[in-house]
């Protein structure tokens, strides 16, 4: 998690992927990069298989919804190189209307349920996933509840709105 490793990784990735990897940042020492859904599998395959990166472990897949953005669904991957003790975070922003992204379950079996959970909660469609069903919610739910347009409780309640707290 040192600056030097991150620096080397950034150089390596820009040499291999050029401008297909963008928005490089290091919040709290964790290298964060952004790519597109067309390049995500190539990038994950490279990060997993190349001995210079060796991110062999998939820690997590999740998503974040930013309703005000044009491409408002971010799928977030956390990878981990346990040997060098380095983590990396990869973001892919998807169009909310067409939230398709290739599945990572061909690379890691562990991605299966993580992607099912992300589909269940956010509606991200993982193309090629072997079994893309809801996992936590019931099949008849009809919505993807973690999207920001769905309120937690009665939307007419105003006592918890941020504008009443000077924000």
């Amino acid at each position: 998690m040192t600056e030097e490793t991150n620096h080397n990784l950034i150089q390596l990735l820009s040499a291999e992927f050029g401008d297909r990897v963008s928005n490089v940042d290091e919040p709290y020492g964790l290298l964060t990069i952004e790519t597109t859904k067309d390049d995500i599998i190539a990038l994950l395959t490279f990060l997993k298989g190349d001995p210079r990166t060796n991110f062999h472990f998939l820690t997590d897949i999740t998503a974040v919804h930013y309703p005000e953005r044009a491409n408002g669904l971010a799928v977030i991957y956390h990878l981990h190189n346990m040997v060098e003790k380095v983590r990396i975070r990869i973001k892919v922003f998807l169009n909310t209307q067409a939230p398709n992204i290739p599945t990572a379950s061909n690379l890691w079996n562990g991605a299966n349920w993580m992607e099912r959970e992300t589909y269940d909660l956010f509606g991200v469609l993982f193309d090629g996933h072997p079994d893309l069903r809801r996992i936590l919610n019931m099949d008849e739910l009809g919505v993807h509840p973690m999207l920001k347009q769905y309120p937690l409780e009665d939307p007419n309640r105003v006592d918890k709105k941020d504008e009443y707290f000077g924000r």
Partner: protein
Amino acid sequence: MVHNQPVFTDNDPQSELVTLNLGPTHPATHGVFQNILQLDGERIVSGVSTIGYIHRAFEKIAEHRPFYQITPLTDRLNYCSSPINNMGWHMTVEKLLNIKMPKRVDYLRVIVMELARISDHIICNTIIAQDTGATTTFLYLFQFREHIYEIYEEICGARLTTNIGRIGGFERDFNEIAFAKINKFLKDFPVALREFESLLNRNRIFIDRTAGVAAVTPEQALDFSWTGPLLRATGVDYDVRVSEPYSSYQDFDFEIPVGTSGDIYDRFLVRNEEMWQSVRLIEQAMEKLKNEPAGIFHADVPDFYLPPKEEVYNNMEALIYHFKIVMGEIDAPKAEVYHAVEGGNGELGFYLINDGGRTPYRLHFRRPSFINYQMYAPMSKGMLLSDAIINMSSMNIIAGELDA
């Protein structure tokens, strides 16, 4: 109503397969898990896991709660070791806020977290024994879980869902009774644990039931993103406490036990040895506390740490800070942070995105039970039904953590 679940009814009159609903509420599963199994005699031919029976939408709720109100949600993830979850969440926020903790608080936290790890492993290991038919061992060791809960009670007043500590430290110092109870626990527990091990470790029946059952290779385990004792039982020495030390774990001298074959027997031994290491850690922490200035139980960060009630009632500054924290008006950086702790079942990660509002913009829990459990159905194939039951016990799947 559209059911896209696979339907297992076998219409073939020649078929000899039996469909069995194991769960959702079955005494052998120790929780709300449903597995629809297809059996050929006693062998499992295929299985489908259904989860989500106690899904409580914690990630959604967390988007509507100030930071300090999220701690009780984390209690209910792995409720067998709630303090680890609480501390993990506090440390995530402290990482976001760049709070440096005094050493004494770190050591107190280590004590609480290791007690929680012991109580978690007690549950898992005694239940493996129980499911293989050894009721005595279950009752022998299980009372120490009660002693641990009594220690929690002294520290925070609660037993199971502890809500222990605060962002920035503890809400109060450990009292004398708490220390006395910890010392008594350190004295009594090793005796009982040794007895527990002598009843099971070389027990012919126990070994026959567990050794070589549900063996997993390190490659498979890493492929399925396993962490924690399950991964270590396969021989991979990954432990967050060593790989990315938090709460001053780097100051301690302890070992990470690993297994060789990844079977149920190895998982049992790994957890047992981890309990010994936890005892070592608590002993060292108690020793280190003697060199730390007494009475420090929180960091000096009035902007983020809830002041004591009597201060709030009598002191203007404390009242202002209290009001700002309770109303969620703290000045947290707009950033995202991932923090992982070694939970009872593996890497418990908190992925927090803060946009400067009262509540997190997004909070995701990386729940080890959820990720570990997905291998259960595939690995049950070809297994005996009774082996699949102890396999589930040895994975220590906690429904609260599975479903969030």
